[in-house]
């Protein structure tokens, strides 16, 4: 058993969750307050990656980002970014795949906040950004934590997409989920169990502490 896949997994989950916060929060904000007709379409699009089997989604991403392709080679040549068989690629794929788990809870959290909080801030001359970060987000901590927990856990367990686009390269793209899968396939059940238990234990502790914190918030939010 090696520690590297486990470390890589938590790195991936952490980086992905951070990016999901950065992307998901503004998106959720827009979705929560917009009256545009496009809203339902965007909501649906955000959910769609869930619908494809992960390996197939991975396959399409593989084709899209392949340097053999116009788009992939453009990324490579002009931005110097490669998304396949790299850690960056895993992050990108995980972001696409876990996006609804961040966006949905944050969106419904924001939609449930009394609109006066937002309006009070605007009347004080504050920008939308300031309002979002100083007023709105601190008051939907339970929803934010739900989003973070679901994204984090889902990324840890992600496997199909990651296997396809990452290719199981030790130290680079061989995350714990793939390592466990590998050991099961290799009939090394004791190693697989070992990995599983450790992954389970660490994640259990992380989630438990989050939920214990969350419990406190939930109570204060639930009037």
């Amino acid at each position, binding site marked *: 058993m090696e520690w590297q896949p486990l470390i890589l997994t938590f790195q991936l989950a952490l980086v992905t969750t951070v990016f999901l916060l950065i992307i998901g929060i503004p998106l959720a904000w827009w979705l929560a307050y917009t009256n545009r007709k496009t809203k339902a379409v965007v909501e649906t699009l955000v959910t769609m990656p869930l619908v494809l089997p992960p390996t197939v989604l991975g396959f399409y991403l593989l084709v899209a980002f392949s340097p053999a392709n116009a788009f992939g080679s453009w990324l490579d040549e002009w931005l110097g970014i490669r998304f396949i068989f790299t850690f960056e690629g895993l992050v990108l794929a995980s972001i696409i795949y876990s996006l609804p788990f961040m966006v949905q809870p944050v969106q419904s959290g924001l939609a449930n906040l009394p609109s006066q909080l937002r309006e009070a801030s605007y009347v004080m001359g*504050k920008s939308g950004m300031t309002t979002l970060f100083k007023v709105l987000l601190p008051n939907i901590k339970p929803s934010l934590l739900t989003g973070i927990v679901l994204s984090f856990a889902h990324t840890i367990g992600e496997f199909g997409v990651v296997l396809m686009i990452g290719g199981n390269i030790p130290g680079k793209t061989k995350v714990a989920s793939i390592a466990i899968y590998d050991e099961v396939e290799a009939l090394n059940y004791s190693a697989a169990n070992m990995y599983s238990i450790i992954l389970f234990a660490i994640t259990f502790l992380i989630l438990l502490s989050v939920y214990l914190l969350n419990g406190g918030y939930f109570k204060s939010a639930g009037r």
Partner: protein
Amino acid sequence: MIHISLQKILNTAQNLMTLNIELALERGQFATLYGASGAGKTSTLRMLAGLMKPDEGQIIVNDKTWVDTDKGINLPPQQRRVGLVFQDYALFPNMTVRKNLEYALTRRQKPDIVDELMDMIELSELQDRKPGTLSGGQKQRVALARALVQRPDILLLDEPLSALDSKIRIKLQDYLQKVHRQYGLTTILVSHDIPEVFKLSDQVYVLEDGVVARQGSPAEVFGYGQMSGKFRFTGEVLEIRKEEVVYIVTVLIGTNVVKVIAQESEIAGLKVGDQVMVASKAFNPVIQRVGE
């Protein structure tokens, strides 16, 4: 001078109502919007603050155009120098009292005003508490202080005191009066409470179904005139009791219960709950402080 001329079609429960408001306020005036539920008071304040877009109209504040639908001007709330106290306070639950006030500071402002306001409105002792732990009256004071931090041109108050008990209410009325004078504000208050309107405002606008039905000083609007020699009180009949040949009518005037002896002819058709006027021909009142 503040010129307000707004039209907006509001869809009430069953039908449409056209809000059609014309107001001209002096600088430094304390004006009150008075009217039944659904008359359009809150909507008027929201259009002033930039939180609702009028269908048509203009708002010109001290020669600056905030709204002119013909010219396509509609400043966002951020660019209007308005302070707004919401009926349900809208304090930020995640911030302490002090942080709520500090949040309102503009970048160029000195933070001294926060302490000044906390002193004036007696919030200093509460400064580290979160809104969730405050009583209604305390919350209201914080909301008022917060609306004043930016020294707005116009202070808008949407039924700020209606849910408070009378003791706190009187205290907050005093604060309102104090800050209105001290900061030379133009204040627009929404209130249902006639004594409050009397006490605070220079000018009352009575809204009925979206238009200003009457306006004037409180005494003019509520029709009691300026009394001098003769006294009249309005009150409500609590009880009518027949005692031998006369009737004893118990009337509630404010918080006072008065018993009046009346002839049968005087009380014809009178019933419990009616509004009545009690007047006297000769009345030599003496005044006396009530020990608190």
